């Protein structure tokens, strides 16, 4: 099942903040920042259990992250990924020449990916080194 026409927002969360201070290359960080939070009603369209890996796709890339239900809803049509290496696979690097990339507001699609592998930060970034 795929949901189209979503808007992706990336931002800080307190768990992501604690995890990044505790060690960005830890499992705690994956669980804090390698996630995508959905509006409760939107998530039903994916027809899979909460926690299933999902593939988030934008014009700038795609990434596997764990799904969760947002505690900050309702926000139909909006998904959010905490700031960090997972979010940065799919954000818009274009700054419209002002210097700051457009980290929020990308159009996104999401697919349930039960067999998708959510990488930890080190392995995710390693892909950028080898590429």
């Amino acid at each position, binding site marked *: 099942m795929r949901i189209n026409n979503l*808007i992706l*927002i990336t*931002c*800080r*969360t*307190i768990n992501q*903040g*604690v995890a*990044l*201070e*505790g*060690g*960005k*290359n*830890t499992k705690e960080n994956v669980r804090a920042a390698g996630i995508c939070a959905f509006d409760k009603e939107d998530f039903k369209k994916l027809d899979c259990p909460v926690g299933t890996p999902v593939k988030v796709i934008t014009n*700038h*890339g795609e990434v596997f992250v764990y799904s969760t239900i*947002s*505690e*900050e*809803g*309702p*926000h139909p049509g*909006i998904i*959010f990924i905490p*700031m*960090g*290496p997972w979010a*940065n*696979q799919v*954000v*818009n*690097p274009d*700054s*419209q*020449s*002002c*210097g*700051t*990339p*457009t*980290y*929020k*507001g990308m159009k996104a699609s999401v697919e349930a990916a039960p067999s998708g592998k959510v990488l930890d*930060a*080190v392995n*995710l*970034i*390693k892909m*950028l*080194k080898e*590429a």
Partner: protein
Amino acid sequence: MVDKNIRTVTDVICPFCGTLCDDLEVDIDIREEKVVEVRNGCQIGTKKYFSSNPGEHRYNKPLIKENGSYKEVKWDEAIDKAADILVKAKRPLLYGFSSTECDAQGKGVELAELLGGILDNTASVCHGPSLLAIQDVGAPTSTLGEYKNRADLVIFWGSNPVHAHPRHLGRYSDLIRGYFRKDGASDRFLVVVDPRNTHTAQLADMHIQVNPNEDYELLNAIRATLRGVELDEEEISGVPKKKIIELVNTLKSCKFGVIFFGMGLTQTLSHHRNIDAAICLVRELNDHTKFLLTPMRGHYNVAGANQVFAWQTGYSYSIDFSKGYPRYNPGEFSSVDVLMRKEIDASLIVASDPASNFPAAAVRNMFKYPLISIEPHHTPTSVNADIILPPAIAGIECEGTAYRMDSVPLRLRKVKDPPGDCLTDKEIIERLIEAVKKKKGE
């Protein structure tokens, strides 16, 4: 019972976010020079202190990458190799500086000028647009203490302090008694403008659920309504006209209002123009009442980096020294943009983690060339660096000055000694400057 093995340091300034809380208490076990307890800090600040203890995620010796793995070396060898890389580069990038103290930032300016490279700090991906807007239209602003004591209308626009600045509400903006706000939160009206019903919005008296990327139109409609213009549309940016009029009346009728704004405005489309419109709105509200605004700075000393860079070069970030004098132009000299255009041939990353925080395409280009990382912990940037130079953590293992989000300078304390062979950021950059000067024959 006073434990003689514990050294307690009070009035500690927390080195995490721009709120720069100044009331932390840290207990150190003097036998092992380890943090054992932190009082008054938020979850994140507390974690930062604990993770400064020696551990598997903390570097304590300089490392050079050889044949795919890291080799421990002495400082002289590491500095020499790093200086070699920097001197040979024709367009080196010096980036970060937001999580260290002001003296180190000043040394960063000196090094960038010496190398003729690009000097940038994290404002470039964060509140840079706020600085651009302030350069265009100014900023009516004040200090957090004034807001705590006077503000009866507090607006968070594109900012979620419960998650990003956890003690902000409790120390300055809502859940605290002020001199003229003796009933604390009951004396204040909290408004949150955000596309999501964030945890901060859930505490608010009014939540304006604006559509993502349409904040400019909403600010424009508010400014127009304030000037008495009748809006033609029934809904703007997802907000009903009635609510906009209600908001404008709230804005006009408060005694002292403040807008705190964050990445919701700087990182969405139209970036600095969003802030431009917010500043013009606040400026005009002063025809009706007292109104000010302050950016919610993310890192604890990014404001300091902007200050120090501006004193010494005239510019706050995205500075190019390649012609021998400082030039400023975000978009042309900003880190992500120069990396996207593949201009950089070496990077020195200080007190920051761009591999985690830059868009993937920029990180890919950054990794193609030599990377030197001045970083206390294992991060996605450091584990891909060619040289790792371990610093003492400013605000924990080294003293210094930091600037709060409202540009108030506070003196960071040293609560314990750094582990292993760590030097302070300032010393490391000083040694690099010396080595670079020698290699350039000065």
